[in-house]
């Protein structure tokens, strides 16, 4: 699926664009969202510029209720501070706002995500002799624990969607029902994974991620091949609605503004 088109055949989009649009639709106008950098930041700002104009976006640098005109390269770009309602110290950010339970959704990415939506951003391979040393946890371990719900987005491949993560940086559903509670958590954890192929949601009984919606033009075999476990499909499998012309226009404008801003140096 390099390109897709809607029923009318006049709106082309890339898999990445569809992923961002699908992720943005998971956010509501009344959400208070703790935003990870990269793909989550794109989806959150697209939501704010389309169907969720009042959404509160919070970045771990302490910028509360920010409305960036261009996508930040880092979680602490000046753009975030200049367009925020207020900027608080990082200690306050994590202790009052996140740990205090005021954030409805955390939006994360990850190098590895497993069948129970546990996230690895620490190492590929053994911790003491890693094949690849990844950046680490950052804010994610507590975002995954303290936000009421967690959304995850990543490109779909068998290297990324794995049976078991090499290292649990941020807890999803552990190894099944009861694991979050046993770890002392009362929050819901991951409720949705958005990839460039499909949507996955935890099975209410087993907590294993199940494909609930295929993106337009994607078939089951593609998803099976690109998933590191024997992935199951929901009985009532949906088709993700394609991006609307408006969603695509807003997203492309956002990208164009961002590229122009970051090229300046």
């Amino acid at each position, binding site marked *: 699926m390099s390109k897709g088109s809607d029923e009318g055949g006049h709106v082309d989009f890339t898999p990445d664009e569809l992923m961002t649009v699908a992720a943005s639709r998971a956010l509501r106008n009344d959400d208070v969202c703790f935003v990870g950098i990269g793909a989550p930041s794109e989806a959150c700002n697209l939501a704010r510029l389309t169907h969720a104009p009042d959404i509160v976006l919070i970045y771990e*640098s302490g910028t509360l209720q920010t409305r960036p005109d261009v996508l930040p390269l*880092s979680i602490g770009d000046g753009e975030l501070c200049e367009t925020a309602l207020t900027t608080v110290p990082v*200690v306050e950010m*994590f202790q009052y706002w996140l740990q205090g339970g005021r954030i409805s959704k955390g939006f994360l990415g990850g190098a590895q995500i497993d069948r129970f939506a546990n996230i690895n951003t620490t190492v590929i391979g053994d911790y003491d002799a890693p094949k690849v040393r990844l950046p680490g*946890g950052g804010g994610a371990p507590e975002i995954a624990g303290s936000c009421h719900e967690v959304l995850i987005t990543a490109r779909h491949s068998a290297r990324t969607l794995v049976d078991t993560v090499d290292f649990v940086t941020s807890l999803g559903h552990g190894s099944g029902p009861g694991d979050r509670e046993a770890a002392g958590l009362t929050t819901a954890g991951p409720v949705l994974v958005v990839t460039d192929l499909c949507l996955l949601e935890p099975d209410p009984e087993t907590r294993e991620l199940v494909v609930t919606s295929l993106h337009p033009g994607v078939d089951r075999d593609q998803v099976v091949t690109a998933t590191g476990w024997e992935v199951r499909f929901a009985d009532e499998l949906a088709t993700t609605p394609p991006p609307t012309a408006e969603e695509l226009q807003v997203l492309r404008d956002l990208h164009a503004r961002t590229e122009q801003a*970051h090229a300046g140096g």
Partner: protein
Amino acid sequence: MAEFVSLRDAVARYVHDGDTVAMEGFTHLIPFAAAHEIIRQRRRNLTLIRMTPDLVYDQLIGAGCARKLVFSWGGNPGVGSLHRLRDAVERGWPAPLELEEHSHAAMAAAYHAGAAGLPFATLRGYAGSDLRRVNPNIASVTCPFTGEVLAAVPAHRPDVGIVHAQRADRAGNVLVEGIVGVQKETVLASTRSIVTVEEIVDDLAAPSPNSVVLPAWAIDAVAVAPRGATPSYAHGYYERDNAFYIAWDEISRDREQFEAWLGEHVLSAGPTGAPV
């Protein structure tokens, strides 16, 4: 009481081989000029504390200044890996690097505890995370009132804390504006502290009674370092050089290329920060 000194003298006087050094600035106000002076003075065996090592510690690690890194997120923000950090961890170049790895929430809490003179910090954190398994400095503590089990980490008590700020007045009081990160906590948690500033002014002109001001008597040294946070930024003075952050990916990928960059832009560059 803050003393105005050159950056060269501040580093010579307050940063010693084997010290535990915290250089903070959360994406904003990262003290690059001070780090480059530490590299020029060839400090060795430092334990470096920083939430986001960023390019600044990638450079210190690649230059061979570090023995250990205490951190929570070691990437090039929005770009990818820190290649010098990875080379040290994965291949021991230029020297092996011991890691003590936390989450942001725990690092912030540890600075907070250090500033508050407490021995450790508590947080509702690390639930189900393997970080507990690989870092013996992540422990548990039971609340004596409710019985809730919480995570505990030792307070950060660096030998030296170094931050960059917008400006100081002639008494040495310092104003920090914008994303203030954990700068205040870092200075207050540290035994000795160095603050580099963009400029010295007659009147601090703090815009609000609630502005973040570090009193002169809580700081050891103030050194002038114009553009001392480049390629990060100083709110109200200059913007983040995002193009350099992107370029660093290529510069730092290769050892020889990194060393050439270090030679040209750090080692043979003159010390910044003239005495007042």
